[in-house]
């Protein structure tokens, strides 16, 4: 056997910077030149907070996005989907706390038609009645399917426990079984008219493209879109009551478990230290939680701890599952590990920093990954060099700063535990 090789010093890396171009209608284009990436990923990030949804119409933002590829004035009905397919374009919408994001992936030679079709979808959707009824039924059915999964129920219950119930994001983004049937086609048309606007929108284009040419195409495709709307601010995130509870899901052979804390956003000076802390506790295969719960005890297929930032505030969660018989043992061990009676070691902190910094150039190796991250920057209203700044911040994290962030935000903070499983699981498992 050859001797174990030593590692050479690792090179420096920074997140790519785009060519930035402001359009007259208030949109900004970020064009990233990524050589060798022949599939171009584009994301139109609309400044459209989820709290724009009218009372009792949870999910309308999702229903509207799902209707955008159902036909436009220029390409009515199925001819819009046919046009997408003719150019090899995949269309995917997503709704978040602060923005709605419309993504298209396409071969590089389809960029101009792709941008034109994307512009059509936001400018002149038809919202055909038949299509509306079909999408409404589909979204309702998707919620039923999501609600039939223990993992989804647990995640929904955790947000509800951690956040003030008057905050829209405390409830499921796509709505619920009560709200979706109340939505009418008129509601959809009104929502689009009142909230879809180029003002404050960011168009991200990533791939092996000429950034200036791509910006010119974006200008050509979107210049006629001039809808003005009254902007809505993202509502502040407020803490909830942190109740813990067991939810019975009949016939479960495994329990889905969540633990959660109120968190911070990426502008918080503790963000890098928190990242290191969650990585040590549950952010990698060799984390404290995974080592004990999976590799030593065989309790679970996996356990993770991660921080989820919103534009302002956020939350932190532990996600795992185990068979019914070991729920209490797993929770007892998890609480013991989270008590962190052993402070972080210098080796743990150094390993976590290396993991977080060195994984970045690998994680952002495709146009899709860069577009996805750039979308998060736009959604969080973060600067273009934010990722590079975070990497610099990580290098400055110490044992003390990581431990301080852990104590303040997790160890000494109120938390909620949610267990979704069979009827034989009692509230006793929640007791520490």
């Amino acid at each position, binding site marked *: 056997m050859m001797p174990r090789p030593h590692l050479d010093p690792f090179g420096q890396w920074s997140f790519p910077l785009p060519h930035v171009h402001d359009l007259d209608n208030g949109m900004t284009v970020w064009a990233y030149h990524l050589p060798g990436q022949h599939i171009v990923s584009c994301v139109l990030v609309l400044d459209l907070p989820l709290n724009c949804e009218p009372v009792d119409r949870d999910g309308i933002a999702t229903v509207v996005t799902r209707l955008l590829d159902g036909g436009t004035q220029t390409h009515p009905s199925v001819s819009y989907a046919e046009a997408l397919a003719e150019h090899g374009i995949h269309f995917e919408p997503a709704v978040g706390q602060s923005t709605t994001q419309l993504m298209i992936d396409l071969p590089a030679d389809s960029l101009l038609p792709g941008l034109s079709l994307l512009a059509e979808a936001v400018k002149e959707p038809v919202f055909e009645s038949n299509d509306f009824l079909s999408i409404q039924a589909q979204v309702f059915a998707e919620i039923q399917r999501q609600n039939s999964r223990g993992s989804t129920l647990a995640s929904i219950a955790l947000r509800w426990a951690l956040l003030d119930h008057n905050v829209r994001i405390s409830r499921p983004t796509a709505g619920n079984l009560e709200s979706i049937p109340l939505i009418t086609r008129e509601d959809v048309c009104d929502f689009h008219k009142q909230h879809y606007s180029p003002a404050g929108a960011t168009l991200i284009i990533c791939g092996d493209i000429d950034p200036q040419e791509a910006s010119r195409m974006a200008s050509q495709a979107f210049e006629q879109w001039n809808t003005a709307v009254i902007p809505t601010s993202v509502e502040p995130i407020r803490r909830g009551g942190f109740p813990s509870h067991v939810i019975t899901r009949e016939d479960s052979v*495994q329990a889905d478990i969540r633990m959660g804390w109120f968190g911070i956003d990426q502008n918080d000076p503790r963000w890098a230290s928190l990242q290191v802390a969650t990585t040590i506790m549950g952010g990698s295969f060799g984390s404290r939680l995974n080592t004990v719960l999976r*590799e030593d005890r065989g309790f679970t297929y996996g356990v993770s701890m991660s921080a989820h930032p919103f534009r302002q505030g956020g939350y932190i969660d532990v996600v795992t599952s185990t068979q019914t018989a070991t729920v209490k043992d797993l929770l007892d061990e998890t609480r013991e590990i989270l008590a962190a009676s052993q402070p972080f070691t210098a080796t743990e902190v150094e390993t976590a920093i290396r993991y977080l910094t060195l*994984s970045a150039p690998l994680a952002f190796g495709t146009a899709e990954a860069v577009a996805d991250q750039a979308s998060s920057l736009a959604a969080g209203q973060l600067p273009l060099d934010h990722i590079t700044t975070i990497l610099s911040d990580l290098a400055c994290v110490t044992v003390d700063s990581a431990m301080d962030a852990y104590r303040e935000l997790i160890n000494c903070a109120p938390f909620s535990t949610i267990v979704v499983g069979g009827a034989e699981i009692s509230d006793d498992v929640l007791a520490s």
Partner: protein
Amino acid sequence: MDQQYPLHTSSTSNGIRVAINPDPWVSGVALNLWYEVGSAHEKPGKTGFAHLFEHLMFCGSAHVSSGEHLSTIQAMGGLCNATTSFERTNYFETIPREGLELALWLEADRLSSLLDSVDQLNLDTQREVVKEEKRQRYDNVPYGDVFSHLMGLAFPPNHGYAHLPIGSMDDLDSASLDDVHEFFHTHYHPSNLIMSLSGAIEVEEGFALVEKYFSQIPPGTRPPRTKITALPPLTGLPQLDLSGSVPQDVVYSCWLVPPLTDEITDPLDVGLTIAAGSLASRFHTALVRSHLAHSVGIANLGLAEGNSVVYSTAICAQGVSPEHLEEELIKQVEDLCNQGPTPQEVTRAMRLEDREYLSDLASIETRADLISGAWSYFNDVEEINHHLDRVHQLTATDVHQAISTCLKTDNRGIITYRRAS
């Protein structure tokens, strides 16, 4: 395809088939180790063993402690995992170029000395981890058992494809250390291994590094394989009725079709895209837009030996029975088989395939996996460069012929999954 990925192949002195795909635009390297053993090669009563063994490959070796392989890769920012399929088990890591030698050393250590570390304790622990994985992915989710039933419907008992790689709880319980030793000695050696490297690596350097770290391992002998022979099409409309705590009724249809390596696969897959590959597809237009289904899909599982399976999934809209939905879906299949696709439909399907295939090749991790697969299944790594050219040479007639040959409605099986009342 306009873009050709440079590919170079060689073999180490002990028989590892090595492919190098240098990519000047990335800073990392994707390393893909493809052992030609999967669940199809498991013995009766040993289902799930290839996958359980995959877990044991992370439990240490002569110079690496349990869990250290993954932790070491992650400590250099790398991504690392493994998957077990019907015909292969792959282990893959994407690492910074600076960490390539260490990654190769880790892989060589477990290939040369895994059994030094595997003991009853880590076998028992990983058995429990795999059982939790089975609960999480199959047993505790709605419809989670349907693929197990679908393969059981399509293939006769004890056929290599009749069970899923996750296996059964009983068989997992019966796995012993003797099984581990026998499996390792039979399947895990250089002559049964394909290794692909994609990314920031020069060709000669890549070959030299693999030789450097693996050449001392005895080559072993490729295990004798009983060739899986092609089965005749399904007959008699085999059906299975399932029910459970599911939110909607779903109906599945399946067909035995030629394997992935058969030349009919390309036109067949184009036909499946025409059937259900986009919102402009026939199934979506006829079944979803008309409120019969919430969603409809059809796909080829891409099995490589004897037969593959094409299966459709249709979720019933409220008030629509599975029987009615299946009848309407089969009408669409019959129309496609009888009339064939239009040239416009074929063109659209080709463009969708362009985007999907080039998306897969965009990541060095997926590209390395496709290269290993091309070598294993087609004995030609250049398959990744030729695939789209071949697809673009197809005509509507080719697609029509493939669909009408493979998707005869009398040769299907049917599974209905009903919501328990």
